[in-house]
């Protein structure tokens, strides 16, 4: 039963993708309806799957030499993420009904989204390392295709390609890791590998290479330091795509990978610390960039990067539950924020926050939902972001040193500052230009309401969440905690109030310097470097230039002169003779 459900949950959206691709341009309405139908049904399937969390391992068939088996595991880690992907995917598709209304090439848009949803489910459900890589690359492919959906816009194309290259480059780490798993255990099964690693059957150097390879892959996918430059540029994608892929699901794949493999690498010296510091550095850098950004979607992108940094830090501090719980909250409230931003952008026709202002009066429902999301992001009680962030702070406090905790508190201040700035610039303050505001569509509003409700209520699921994790992930050694216990710990902990205080400090700091938020407290250098992505854009550009120069050099070798070609042949003969002579 579970096996059928899992296979269905991957293949059903793919079937939808194929069907939708075959639609004609004129059948716009049918295309919308089909996409909605398929995504709603797969969301329902994924919710059914939630009831089947357990330790079950499903092996369908062998794929061939070196490819392992088509196998899945029905544990909490995977199924929770599947449900997030399918549910938010479904909401994003419904939102698109209004948002993408009248756009060209809808077939390609919906096909890619459904293809992505299926692949994402596969990525988190499979227990074969090769298949993780397989689905990993499919999600990269879809993400790239959707970012550059508006292919005529060179910025969109560049953004898509950048996302593809950086995630693929990091993906080599996953390739290496998976291949090491294969070479060391003779199978690609992840459970077997973790068990072997915990039993000390794998040499420590190999384990270290695999572990750091996976960190590289995860950092690239989750847009962490030093690979964080692609996510802001990915904001050229249609906004529902940003909400689904670049906030709620695909970028979490990196965190998922670390959580999945974390028990195997506990014995690798420096593995946890590296994950922790990658997270912390990312949080700080991206928070500053968010403070100075003026593009609404870019602010949200930077904030996504920094929240993913929180998830990394939690994994580094050793708490998979905290990381995954914040992942759930973040997926919901960030999807909400993105979709609200989408509604705003759709209505006013620009993404520049400097042109917005005082929009709350004109679009109350959207504004209200956005503020709920923003409060959750900043960590205001009793929204879901508050509880999960407290959980992370607590795990960092108990799992690492005091300076790290202080840095995290500082990050909380920064989060509050950029969140408030964003809300203020868009919905309050002075009206800066005469923007004509369109009516927000019906489907848009409904999805926003659902997500807002989720933001307010999702933390109530903690009890079930925690018990599912502890029950289904024996290798992770997670202790179950009921909702009541969890709430009591948080409420009784004085550090919680310290964190809330920090949020207030952030708000106050921003209010006092409202006209020029940072100039008074922060040095000018910080602003220039934050606007320039702390030099990482330049590094990216330099690498691209180097490769292109190399390519031109290599093309110069293709002289097109026959005599030189013959010379090449003779050189080849001599070289082969030399190598064979030495080797033999």
């Amino acid at each position, binding site marked *: 039963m579970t096996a059928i459900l899992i296979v269905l949950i991957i293949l059903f959206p793919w079937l939808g993708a194929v069907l939708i691709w075959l639609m004609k341009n004129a059948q716009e309405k049918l295309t919308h309806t089909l996409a909605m139908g398929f995504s709603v049904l797969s969301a329902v399937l994924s919710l059914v799957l939630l009831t089947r969390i357990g330790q079950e391992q499903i092996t369908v068939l062998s794929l061939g030499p*070196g490819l392992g088996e088509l196998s899945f595991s029905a544990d909490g880690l995977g199924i929770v993420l599947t449900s997030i992907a399918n549910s938010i995917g479904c909401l994003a598709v419904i939102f698109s009904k209004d948002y993408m209304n009248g756009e060209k090439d809808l077939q390609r848009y919906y096909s890619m989204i459904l293809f992505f949803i299926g692949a994402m489910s596969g990525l988190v459900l499979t227990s074969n390392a090769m298949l993780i890589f397989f689905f990993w690359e499919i999600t990269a492919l879809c993400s790239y295709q959707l970012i550059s959906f508006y292919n005529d816009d060179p910025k969109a194309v560049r953004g898509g390609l950048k996302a593809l*290259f950086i995630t693929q480059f990091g993906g080599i780490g996953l390739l290496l890791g998976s291949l090491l798993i294969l070479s060391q255990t003779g199978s690609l099964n992840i459970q077997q590998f973790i068990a072997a690693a915990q039993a000390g059957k794998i040499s420590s150097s190999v384990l270290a290479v695999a572990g750091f390879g996976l960190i590289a892959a995860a950092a690239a996918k989750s847009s962490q330091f030093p690979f964080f430059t692609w996510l802001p540029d990915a904001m050229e994608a249609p906004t529902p795509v940003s909400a689904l892929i670049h906030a709620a699901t695909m970028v979490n794949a990196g965190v998922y990978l670390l959580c999945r493999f974390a028990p195997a690498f506990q014995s690798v010296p420096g593995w946890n610390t590296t994950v922790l510091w990658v997270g912390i550095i990312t949080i700080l850098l991206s928070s500053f960039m968010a403070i100075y950004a003026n593009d609404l979607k870019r602010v949200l992108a930077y904030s996504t990067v920094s929240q993913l940094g929180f998830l990394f830090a939690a994994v580094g501090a050793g708490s998979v539950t905290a990381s995954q719980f914040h992942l759930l909250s973040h997926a919901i409230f960030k999807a909400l924020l993105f979709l609200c931003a989408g509604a705003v952008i759709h209505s006013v026709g620009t993404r520049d926050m400097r042109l917005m202002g005082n929009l709350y009066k004109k679009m109350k429902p959207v504004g209200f939902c956005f503020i709920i999301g923003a409060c959750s992001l900043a960590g205001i009680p009793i929204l879901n972001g508050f509880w999960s962030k407290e959980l992370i702070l607590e795990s960092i406090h108990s799992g690492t040193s005091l300076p790290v905790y202080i840095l995290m508190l500082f990050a909380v201040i920064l989060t509050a500052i950029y969140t408030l700035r964003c809300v203020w610039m868009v919905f309050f303050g002075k009206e800066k230009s005469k923007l004509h505001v369109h009516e927000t569509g019906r489907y848009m509003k409904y999805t926003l309401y659902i997500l807002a409700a989720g933001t307010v209520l999702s933390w109530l699921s903690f009890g079930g969440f925690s018990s599912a994790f502890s029950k289904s992930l024996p290798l992770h050694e997670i202790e179950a905690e009921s909702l009541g216990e969890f709430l009591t710990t948080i409420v009784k902990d004085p550090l919680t109030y310290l964190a809330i205080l920090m949020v207030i400090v952030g708000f106050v700091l921003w209010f006092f310097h409202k006209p020029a938020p940072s100039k008074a407290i922060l040095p000018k250098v910080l602003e220039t470097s934050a606007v320039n992505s702390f030099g990482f854009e330049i590094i990216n550009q330099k690498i691209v230039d180097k490769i292109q120069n190399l390519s031109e050099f290599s093309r110069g070798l293709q002289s097109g002169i026959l005599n030189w070609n013959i010379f090449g*042949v003779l050189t080849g003969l001599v070289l082969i003779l030399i190598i064979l002579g030495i080797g033999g």
Partner: protein
Amino acid sequence: MQNNLLLWLLFTPMISSVLVYVVGRFFAPHDDEKPNKTVWLCVAGIIATFIPFILASINILNGKTVSTTIGDVTLVFDGISMLVSLTVLLLGLAVILFSIDYMAAEHSEEKFYGLLMILITSIIGLSTSTDLFNIYIWFELMAVSTYSLVAFYRNRATSLEAGIKYLTQSAAGSIFIILSIAMIFGTTGKISMHEIPALIASSKRIMIAAGACFITGYGIKCAFVPMHFWLPDAHSQAPSGVSAMLSGIVIETGLVALLRSLSALKPAAASFGMIFLIIGALNMLIGNLGALRQSEVKRMFAFSSISHMGYIALGIGFVLTFPESTASANGVFFHVFNHAMMKGLAFLAAGAIVFNLKQAKGDHSPLLVTELDGVSQKYPWFALLLSVAVLALGGLPPLSGFISKWQIFAGGALSKNPWALVLIVFAGINSVLSLGYYAPLVNRMYRHQPSQTVLSGVPKYSKTMLLSLVLLGIFVVLLGLVPMLVSNFTGSASATLLNMFQ
């Protein structure tokens, strides 16, 4: 009966080659625009060849042997021949279907089909031969038929230029092969690959020289760096169908010939594997760098063939160097098959676009990358299939290129050798690099604003062209999702390879 099977496998395409040429000569249409009807004889010939092929394959898969002896020459149909024949027959069928309309306006198309059938015969023959000289004969027959095919547009200077460069370098390669055969024959007195290994343990140095000559000679055909310079010219100037054949199967057949010949020398040198590893790395890098800033579509694919030969050579290197890397052997043959389908599809889809945009209007200039802008608006199927082909070539799942690359890497990783891992990472980086030229093509094709060339393209579809593309496209997609479909063939081929070098 089994003897006859192998003979029929060779005779059927041979006879149809003669038939197509002679009949086509008599029934050439007066209207230049219409395709010569005799091409259907050619299609029938290929389909007829499938019958002995399938019967022979069933025998092989049931563990029987299929062989025949004519005079001194023994031909054996084994796992490798089975895979190569399957590949060449499928690709040949697609190419011929594609060429019906593509070549319709050309002068004397019957020559084209006749030569194509000879090419197919020679490839099947080569894969079954068991002695060094016999391989050389089939190899030379294959080369000769491709010379004329590359320079088929005999009134164009560029196509003649490519033909002459190809001919000169390939003929120079043949010299090395003959020399190598002479060295081996002069030392052992034998040319049969089964008898030689027992006789050569004593004379190592000359055998190393012979091995180097084999690698150089056949390596020219396989486009091993630095013997690859002819390939971008020849593959980009040939008619699209021929480019597909050349990139899809001819260069891989060169590799099969090389492996068979080297297997005769296996006691002499342990470092053949090392050569393949080095060549593999070089090929990937040079091919990708050459394609990265290429402005002509077909030339870009030609360079990409060089880099794909790199992956294949890398896999062979793993198999020959590390005894644990048996999965690489599977991967190599899977990649040979996949590459035939992917590159065939890429060249044919590009050819279909060239045909509709230019050829049909008598314009013979090469298709530029910039001219692909917005192709999907007018030719959605061609754009889709070309996208599938290039993404598969770039190694993106769920397409077939991913699986075979993974298998090659997996074999290398199983050796537990750190250098193998370094090479795999290098290959991975190259795969990412290759997306640097594949992915922008897809972006261009899906623009909304078509280029001027696209706007002025011919509005009609050719059904046979589309059929041939879909035939290849199905394999590219399906083998990525269900790699087990051809595992009988690749498994049998890899068992043969491992047996040869045991």
